[in-house]
């Protein structure tokens, strides 16, 4: 349970951080996923680039109706209301159920998203929200819609020499409806099935089903799911042809539950 030896660097500006990536360093935000992986020797990087001290890495700013959440913003900050309004309430509700408070104090929204563990909470929730991931590479910034950032199991739109700077999500109207449900064997454990449903007034409702040992499954038009949660959830999950009937049952129930909450 002790890590293999690794080098440690603490870049103080973004150019230095990108330079370390080119040299093969493993980027680390809060280290709450990478830390255990190092101890278990599931990860044995030559070097770790600690991103926590980069300028602007953590923090929330609202400008022109868009909330920009620095990648290094902790789950605990979001749980404690760092983001205002309806969107903030949604994010706080999700954050509160991530792992345990001592983990949330260091774990970050960007680290979790970039790590792309299929059971992670932000991997399930952010694809359901409008907005973009902001990526930084040697050529500058580029944006990827949150719905297309996570591509699969531990797989994202990030290139090997890019870092996640922030997520940007438009302020949501107060009348936005939201449902989120996950099954964990005990509070804080990795989810066995997570679903969320977002209904913004005037836009087609969206849903995501996740934590199924695959990337998040995005449903672009969840109107039928909102009308008949139980029947539609059964139909959608049947279409995924999950092998394990227990996981399929959890997925169905999570999706129906989230839809009922958002209805």
């Amino acid at each position: 349970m002790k890590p293999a030896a690794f080098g440690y660097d603490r870049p103080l500006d973004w150019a230095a951080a990108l330079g370390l990536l080119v040299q093969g360093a493993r980027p680390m935000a809060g280290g709450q996923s990478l830390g255990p992986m190092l101890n278990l020797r599931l990860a044995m990087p030559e070097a770790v680039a600690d991103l926590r001290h980069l300028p602007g890495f953590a923090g929330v700013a609202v400008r022109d109706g868009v909330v920009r959440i620095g990648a290094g913003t902790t789950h605990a900050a979001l749980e404690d209301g760092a983001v205002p309004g309806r969107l903030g309430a949604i994010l706080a509700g999700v954050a509160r159920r991530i792992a345990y408070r001592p983990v949330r104090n260091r774990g970050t929204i960007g680290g979790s998203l970039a790590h792309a563990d299929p059971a992670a909470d932000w991997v399930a929730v952010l694809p359901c929200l409008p907005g973009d991931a902001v990526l930084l590479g040697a050529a500058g910034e580029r944006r990827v819609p949150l719905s297309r950032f996570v591509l699969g199991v531990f797989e994202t739109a990030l290139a090997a020499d890019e870092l996640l700077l922030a997520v940007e999500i438009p302020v949501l109207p107060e009348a936005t409806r939201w449902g989120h449900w996950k099954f964990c064997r005990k509070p804080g454990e990795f989810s066995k099935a997570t679903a969320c449903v977002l209904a913004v007034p005037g836009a087609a409702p969206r849903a995501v089903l996740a934590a199924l040992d695959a990337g998040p499954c995005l449903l672009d038009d969840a109107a039928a799911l909102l009308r008949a949660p139980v029947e539609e959830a059964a139909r959608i999950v049947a279409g995924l042809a999950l092998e394990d009937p227990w996981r399929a049952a959890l997925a169905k129930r999570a999706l129906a539950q989230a839809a009922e909450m958002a209805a």
Partner: protein
Amino acid sequence: MKRDVTLTVNGLLETVRVEPRTQLAEVLREELRLTGTHLGCEHGVCGACTVEVDGAPARSCILHAGACAGAVVRSIEGFAEDAVMVALREAFSAEHALQCGYCTPGMLVVARDIVLRLPGADAVRVREELAGNLCRCTGYQGIVHAILRVLESRR
């Protein structure tokens, strides 16, 4: 390769010569002889090693020495005179909230955070907040009662 890492532990500036991969818990236990911090699972699940880092509870097993340079750490020894911790220690004793004591340092650090951060917490919330700290002796009943006792005494 070993290098000097300087951090503040229980109010004292300390410099230790360790590898970047050394766990913070090992820095505390092996280098500084602060053996109140216990290592259990060593992958962030059991909560035994929880200490305060930069003012908030954190796992000291998945935090490595390199990342701790400049950190302000408070281990269980650093809470000896803390009023909330004194009340929690008395309540843990009165409510039989420990038997072997292995989980207790981590339990106390999290319990103190619950008392200060969630003054209105009820038994259900206390149990939810304790989900990240495993105890194999007490069945948790005594721990929950002890925390509720301190919460109620402060209302």
